[in-house]
């Protein structure tokens, strides 16, 4: 029997213009490609990655949208966004492009407990 894979939560904390945002997505997608049960939590400036209606071409950047939308297709279904980080930036869950679940501080603690491994990028 195949040994059970350890689950992985990738916490993405950087704004969409930072290379770090893409590099966090890449890790989640790579893990999913290996069949690792993976989830993502968007925290701090990372919540801005999810904001609809961005036009990164204006600053000669490639859109993250395609990579974000690939998450559910690759089996990264557990997508969370920090409610506090949204509120701090005056954002509502309805302004976000993916079906992400808003979580409060105590729920984040439960999430960290739930996953075998956590990487913050």
């Amino acid at each position, binding site marked *: 029997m195949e040994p059970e894979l350890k689950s992985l939560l990738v916490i993405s*904390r950087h704004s969409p213009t930072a290379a770090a945002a893409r590099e966090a997505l890449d890790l989640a997608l790579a893990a999913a490609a290996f069949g690792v049960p993976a989830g993502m939590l968007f925290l701090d400036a990372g919540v801005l990655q999810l904001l609809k209606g961005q036009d990164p071409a204006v600053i000669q950047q490639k859109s993250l949208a395609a990579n974000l939308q690939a998450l559910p297709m690759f089996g990264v279904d557990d997508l969370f966004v920090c409610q506090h980080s949204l509120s701090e930036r005056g954002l509502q869950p309805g302004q976000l492009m993916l079906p992400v679940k808003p979580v409060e501080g105590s729920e984040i603690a439960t999430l960290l407990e739930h996953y075998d491994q956590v990487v913050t990028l």
Partner: protein
Amino acid sequence: MKFAIALLAGPQDPAARSALSFAQAVLAGGHQISRLFFYRDAVHLASSLAVQPQDEADLARQWREFIRDNQLDAVVCIAAALRRGVLNEAEAYRWERPAANSGEPWELSGLGQWVDAMQTADRAVTFGT
């Protein structure tokens, strides 16, 4: 116990030193390091071109010697490295760049190597933000 250690921060960040000290302590404690993985700005450690003032520590050299002396598996994320201008001979040739600045003991490879290392190690530890 088998450790997988990832470093995200560049040579200028204190995390690069903490990670090295931790890795040395892992071996000194009788444990094994199954893989080192260098991601994001940590790929700069794999460049052989950085020059430090003579009275300052050369962290890239310390990492290189630590990896060589202990014959460790040291993987540098190839996508992160190419973006930041860290290329071995094969990549310099492939992308028609005039020079390579990386090579043994570093290996350029994909993120899958980190995913695999996290799955197979008893402990996976990440340094830097």
